């Protein structure tokens, strides 16, 4: 599930493990706008719904879903705007 080699390293990791949906999405929505445009935020979330809801949030919000990682599991999101 890892993204391509050379993909931007996350500037920050949000640990949302143990939190139920929609909390990981809420934390992501709070934090991402505080980062500079282009920065990548990694969300660690073990609620399986995050695998669906984080990409869906990116689509609804016009942010870029970069990759999902098995370890964590982690989800990388780039601030697009």
């Amino acid at each position, binding site marked *: 599930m890892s993204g391509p080699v050379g993909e931007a390293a996350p500037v920050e990791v949000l640990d949302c493990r143990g939190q139920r949906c929609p909390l990981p999405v809420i934390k992501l929505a709070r934090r991402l706008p505080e980062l500079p445009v282009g920065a990548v935020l990694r969300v660690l979330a073990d609620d399986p719904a995050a695998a*669906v809801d984080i990409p869906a949030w990116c689509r609804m919000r016009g942010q870029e879903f970069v990759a999902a990682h098995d370890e964590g599991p982690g989800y990388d999101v780039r601030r697009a705007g």
Partner: protein
Amino acid sequence: MSASPVYLDAATAAPPHPVARQALLAALDDGWADPARLYGQARRARQLLDAAREAAAATLGVRADELSFTPSGTAAAHSAVLGGLAGRRRVGATLVHSAIEHSAVLHAAQRHVAGGGSAVSVPVDRLGRLDLDAFADAVRAPGVALAALIGASHEVGTVQPVAPAAAACAAAGVPLYVDAAQLVGRVPVPAGWSVLTASAHKWGGPPGVGLLVVRKGTRWESPWPADERESGRTPGVVNLPAVVAAAASLRAAAADAAAEAARLAPLVDRIRARVAAEVPDVEVVGDPVDRLPHMVTFSCLYVDGEALLHALDRHGFAVSSGSSCTSSTLRPSHVLEAMGVLSHGNVRVSLHRETTVADVERFLAELPGIVAALRAEAGVVGL
């Protein structure tokens, strides 16, 4: 709450049709004996069972000897899948199914895989519509014993391309099973299937009655221990009063189906449009056009699905959800997951013959405030 409660969960169980109630009460008096016995009461019961079978078969446009009653839509789905696979085990052991089948079908598939068989899940698009090319490819592969396609999604209402899927199956010589639980009694069932199931409480019949139809010439073998009832397809005595009520209400529901669909579809359009316009950060899911006339599903960003259902219940609205947060498994809904749409804060609204414009208007008037209050409570306003 002073206003009377509004029931909007027909896709789980429609309120009983008045015809079902009458038929059930009459059959309790007249149809309690075992139809297999050789005395007067049993003959009366046999007549009722035969008449129910004839009526249900006529409504579906199938032969009476092709139709069996089962103890639920779930039991019918299990029989359809496992019996369809057993009947063709000499051909192969692969089940092809859509990614959005009802859990009854998926659980039967799991049983098949646990027993050494294999299953291929075919994806759907963002609107919840089957990838027909992938489905056709999958059924053409060697060793496919059975294909399964839900007639329309029970979670988002998207109608599936049953006729072209059936054509692909026919070309490959693979029988198609259609879970028509959300179609029967509401919309016409497309042709071309070999096995079909339905569930009476979805059309206003009593709970605990399913239909299993196996077309003549289909190789289907009962997966259950031998029993002669229902042409060997359903073990155990059927709940005859409920079966009689199911058949009577099916005929009544089917007779009104076109008019009901014409009445309900604009109400669903209204819900789709107003929810999207008046609730911020909401995703209305499912095909806006190719859909069931009575169902609409949406997801509210940042809202816990279970909290939303409880809040709606407190305001007198009975709805359901495919959201992970309402299920014991903590998995997101496999349907929403397959579509790639938001799975939390999910609400399914499904209408029925007693639903009024006023019910829908009240729901639409109260929903934005209910969602806003939950968001305020969670501190997620303005995200």
